[in-house]
């Protein structure tokens, strides 16, 4: 149990130590590669510019994730209720998914006046597909006998959806949500890169670009660290949510290992 935490932490510390040692012994200048200690210092000294940027990026990420959940689940339910809707819409969902976001982001940013909204759309585009496809899969993976049982007792489509299909799809949905959480962050960051300055809305990506222009490489690294930490935090939070919702009944959340 403790090895699960101790091993990666020791490994991480060792890598950081090695990094610091290389930077010092080879006297690499900070504008090429800053050592971890300098990055940590910059994180503290530049906190007043980095923190608002983190808030902006996180806000877009969370809003996009929320929109992905709403649209993904609604579409999935619609697909499960009507084969026709599924047949006619699913291919387009896939097209949206396979088109690289960097390729369409400029278009969206050009079309939509409000930068915040355009960033939101980009992040949403990246995030919504795993939720949609996982939920569709979950809604379909219902035990056939249970479906028959519901039919036997005269349950209509709505009751079957609420009492059978949705609970059966919950583990699948939560799996999709965990993937989408990370993707929403990636989508937000990529869109910020494409959008450039983004006016008053300057997220972490813009801080990275800006630091690059100004050769403030330690700050660039500090912003990178923040993005990673944000991604890890999102993943852990969603894993916790999933564990809390499933621990009583689903194999994936059984206690111990």
């Amino acid at each position, binding site marked *: 149990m403790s090895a699960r935490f101790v091993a990666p932490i020791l490994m991480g510390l060792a890598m950081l130590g090695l990094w610091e040692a290389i930077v010092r012994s080879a006297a690499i200048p900070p504008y090429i590669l800053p050592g971890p200690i300098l990055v940590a210092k910059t994180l503290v000294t530049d906190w007043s510019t980095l923190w608002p940027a983190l808030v902006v990026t996180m806000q877009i990420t969370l809003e996009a994730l929320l929109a992905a959940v709403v649209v993904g689940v609604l579409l999935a339910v619609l697909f499960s209720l009507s084969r026709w809707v599924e047949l006619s819409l699913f291919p387009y969902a896939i097209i949206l998914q396979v088109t690289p976001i960097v390729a369409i982001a400029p278009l969206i940013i050009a079309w939509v006046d409000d930068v915040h909204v355009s960033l939101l759309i980009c992040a949403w585009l990246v995030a919504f597909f795993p939720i949609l496809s996982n939920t569709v899969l979950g809604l379909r993976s219902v035990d056939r006998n249970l479906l028959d049982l519901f*039919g*036997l007792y005269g349950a209509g489509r709505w009751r079957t959806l609420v009492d059978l299909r949705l609970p059966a799809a919950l583990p699948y949905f939560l799996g999709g949500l965990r993937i989408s959480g990370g993707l929403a962050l990636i989508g937000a960051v990529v869109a910020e890169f494409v959008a450039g300055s983004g006016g008053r809305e300057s997220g972490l990506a813009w801080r990275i670009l800006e630091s690059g222009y100004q050769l403030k490489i330690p700050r660039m690294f500090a912003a990178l660290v923040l993005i990673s930490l944000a991604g890890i935090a999102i993943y852990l939070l969603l894993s916790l949510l999933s564990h809390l919702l499933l621990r009583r*009944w689903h194999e994936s959340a059984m206690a111990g290992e």
Partner: protein
Amino acid sequence: MRLLAVRDVSKVFANGVKALEDASLEIEAGEFLSVLGPSGCGKSTLLRLIAGLETPSAGSIEWQQGRPDLGFVFQEPTLMPWTTALGNVALPLKLAGMARSEREARAAEALGHVGLAGFERSYPRELSGGMKMRVSIARALVTAPKLLLMDEPFAALDEITRRRLNTDLLELWQRTRFTAVFVTHSVFESVFLSQRIAVMSPRPGRVLSEIAIPAAYPRAESFGTSAEYAALCRTTSARLAEAMAAA
């Protein structure tokens, strides 16, 4: 009094498999009937046709007084893993629109009848295979159905558990006198449980012969070791062998 008659029913599935051909069977109200046949002969199909889960390709199923409330026990427990034993048993009542407090009271009572008092709050994965099957039976009985259809309910269980459940099932049947249709491929089980056995031929299935089991109820575990039981098993095995050969 007759409950229903299956008349010359055939069932051809969409993929062309002919599961049943001219199957006929009459079922009396209140009797315990076993349907015995080799794997794949269409026993499940017959049961699903009676339950209205499939429609016959030819022939008809005639109900003396309309299709009554019925309970269905599948080969697997078929429980919803996200809810408790109580929630699972209460499901038919919930779907019928019964208020929460009342349906939970009834479900608790049904769990008591199958020997699971105290396990109301357990989730399916916290129960053993035999206990899950009991929950499934409680769920089928909670609506007090006139007809209980069981599709090899104990096939996946070990011998000891199966015997226990067989005795318990007979006890429940004697107490409430629902009509029981019990599908099995076990000669021993069918003789132990039923008043009458319908023997089916291999696919496409038909009811080839019927055997009366005149032994009196209650049948204790000791019935299973009696000479009468052994003789009846021998007869039934012979009939099953005939059915297999006739195909």
